[in-house]
């Protein structure tokens, strides 16, 4: 059996490892589209930028010769196309690799907004390790940096740039920060927090263009904004969003939408081809509908489930929970599931503007379906637990409507309700439990 | 020749965890029991299988009986023996 995994992010690596754990003899090849000695994690890049870790610290697996020891062939190469009838992957160098089963886990890439100057030197996205190396060349202490986009990824980079000591202006087209992760209250809190930390936050503002030259001695670029002002920049970081890497699939028989279309077994429309992670549209647990959820835990979940299906263990994917956690210069926020709430659902809110604390719980009936959280980190995973398991909160729903801060009690009360015994939290299906 | 032993009535009170050793038909934690004349506190307790090591506080008509005297003094009709395992309060 020949398994080929295209893409060496968390989805690809997890899939390769899962395949090996099921099938001890198969040939497994994992192909990284980026020229790196090891698969690495994008989640770790901000920590690399501000020097908390070395490059090696970003690697997905930390043991020496991890892939060699597992009998997984790791190689670098860009995919030029797929011959789904011939069961072959074409690499851009001309080489073809045959497969019995193929996993596409090619991830996503940052969107470069169509604006003048987006390709100037000193303008970078912050997505790959290579981007990070480029950014490091410009992000010196005191350097003026313009960060375009205050979404989830923008905010993660913000933290790193802040810790590097850069002078930051953040420009966001939407009327608030993290608009796709949290509501006005939370976004407003984050914005105030950033201002307090000395970051210039411009929301409802568009970048009209970037041009070379600046009045400021420490900047080589000038960023013109829709509010009529211009900001000098030694570095412009673009973080306006990502899109799935699927262009190479044209004509392959693998149907795509925003991402690759998959069924509940993460099979694509082409035989023996599966997809996982940011490049595909898996099921969103909250809506039951396909969606591209570009987050690490979902990539891992997809990777495992796809591999189990590829290896002949039919494992349906019931859906992934959309969730995010963000550290904005020390203010930690998170959101889960249907944080926008349900049309007829009830909402519990705790707002403490002075102390930058916010907790919002969204219910449908007596179940938690979504949550947002700012400034609170203790036991925050319980939010996921409640949403994921769909536990009936019963009377605790009303208690939470009165006092959402009693969330942890509510969780323990309903999850440990009976018998009066045992360290058992909610019944949750781990990916392995889904097998068979 | 058979001798009949006269019996007397005494009250046995077993408290806290010793309550489990009370004979059937007790009310509250007390039982009226018939014992042969000449019965000592120890023999009364033994006859109800009250573990000796658990008999920490033994009061005869409210007066503490040190362990040494529990096997000596003979009970009289109407006596009340109250026993507790080690307990305290405040």
């Amino acid at each position, binding site marked *: 059996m020949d398994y080929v995994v295209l893409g060496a992010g968390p989805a690809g690596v997890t899939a390769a490892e899962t395949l090996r754990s099921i099938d001890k003899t198969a040939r497994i090849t994992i192909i990284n589209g980026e020229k790196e000695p090891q698969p690495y*994690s994008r*989640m*770790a890049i901000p*920590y690399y930028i501000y020097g*908390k*870790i070395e490059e090696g*610290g*970003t*690697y*997905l*697996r*930390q*043991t020496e010769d991890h892939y060699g020891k597992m009998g997984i062939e790791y190689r670098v190469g860009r995919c030029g196309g797929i011959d789904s009838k011939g069961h072959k992957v074409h690499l851009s160098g001309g080489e073809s690799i045959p497969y019995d089963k193929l996993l596409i886990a090619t991830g996503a890439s940052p969107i470069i907004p169509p604006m003048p100057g987006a390709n100037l030197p000193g303008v970078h996205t912050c997505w790959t390790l290579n981007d990070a190396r480029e950014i490091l060349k410009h992000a010196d202490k005191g350097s003026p940096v313009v960060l375009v986009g205050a979404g989830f990824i923008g905010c993660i980079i913000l933290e790193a740039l802040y810790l590097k000591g850069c002078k930051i202006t953040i420009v966001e087209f939407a009327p608030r920060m993290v608009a796709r992760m949290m509501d006005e209250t939370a976004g407003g809190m984050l914005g105030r927090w950033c201002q307090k930390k000395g970051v210039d936050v411009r929301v409802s503002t568009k970048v009209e263009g970037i041009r070379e030259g600046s009045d400021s001695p420490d900047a080589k670029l000038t960023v013109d904004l829709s509010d009529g002002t211009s900001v000098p920049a030694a570095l412009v970081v673009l973080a306006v969003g990502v899109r799935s890497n699927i262009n190479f699939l044209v004509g392959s028989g693998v149907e795509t939408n925003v991402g690759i279309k998959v069924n509940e077994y993460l099979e694509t429309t082409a035989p023996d081809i599966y997809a996982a992670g940011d490049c595909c549209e898996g099921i969103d*647990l909250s809506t039951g509908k396909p969606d591209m959820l570009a987050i*690490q*835990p979902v990539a*891992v*979940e997809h990777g495992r489930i796809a591999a189990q299906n590829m290896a002949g263990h*039919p*494992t*349906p994917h019931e859906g992934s929970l959309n*969730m995010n*956690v963000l*550290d904005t210069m020390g203010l*930690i926020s998170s959101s889960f599931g249907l944080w926008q709430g349900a049309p007829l659902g009830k909402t519990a809110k705790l707002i403490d503007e002075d102390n930058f604390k916010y907790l919002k719980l969204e219910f449908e009936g007596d179940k938690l*379906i979504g949550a947002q959280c700012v400034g609170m*980190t*203790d*036991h*925050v*995973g*319980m*939010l*996921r*637990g409640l949403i994921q*398991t*769909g*536990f*009936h909160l019963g009377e605790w729903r009303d208690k939470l409507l009165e006092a959402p801060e009693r969330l*942890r*009690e509510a*969780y*323990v*009360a309903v*999850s*440990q309700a009976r*018998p*009066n*015994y*045992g*360290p*058992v*939290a*909610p*019944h*949750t*299906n*781990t*990916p392995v*439990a889904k097998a068979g | 020749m058979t001798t009949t032993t006269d019996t007397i009535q005494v009250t046995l009170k077993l408290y806290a965890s010793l309550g489990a050793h009370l004979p059937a038909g007790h009310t509250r934690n007390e039982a009226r029991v018939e014992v042969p004349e000449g019965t000592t506190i120890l023999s009364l307790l033994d006859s109800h299988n009250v573990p000796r090591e658990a008999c920490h506080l033994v009061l005869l008509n409210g007066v503490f009986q040190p362990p040494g005297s529990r096997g000596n003094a003979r009970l009289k009709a109407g006596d009340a023996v109250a026993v507790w395992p080690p307990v305290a309060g405040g």
Partner: protein
Amino acid sequence: MHKALVIDPGKCTGCKQCEMACSYVKTGEFNVSKSRIRVFDFHTEARFVPYTCTQCAEAWCQQACPVNAITTNADGVKVVNDNLCVGCKVCTIACPFGTVNYNAETKKVIKCDLCLGSPACAEACPTSAITFQDSEQAGFDKMKLWATQAAHAATHEGPNAPVAKG
């Protein structure tokens, strides 16, 4: 068989000796807010529930970690390797039990590691509400039973309910 913490809330008196022992072992001072185990107090129901990590066989936190900083040791314990943890907090939202927490002082995550073999909480518990024993023993069977009941408790309607298929 691995040993596990078996918790019986029915025996807990709410004394928090477990929290004190845990915080002392982990931080060198007595600080219940740093304890990896927490006792929840439901006073109107006269019930106290100690709560900590269950060391899942297939741990959500471990899978979610982007840099492999959470590893399984020989005793099946999920351990955070401080030298690898970057502090991204993904595990804190991934763990559906809420037992991986972020420590703002160290900028790393903390979780119960069973004190690598002799949990201080179990040793400190005066009523055996927390014991450390072979997970195959009685407690674990009851846990499984409970898991089954919990599965029934979660109704299979609505978009959020886990659906058992296949």
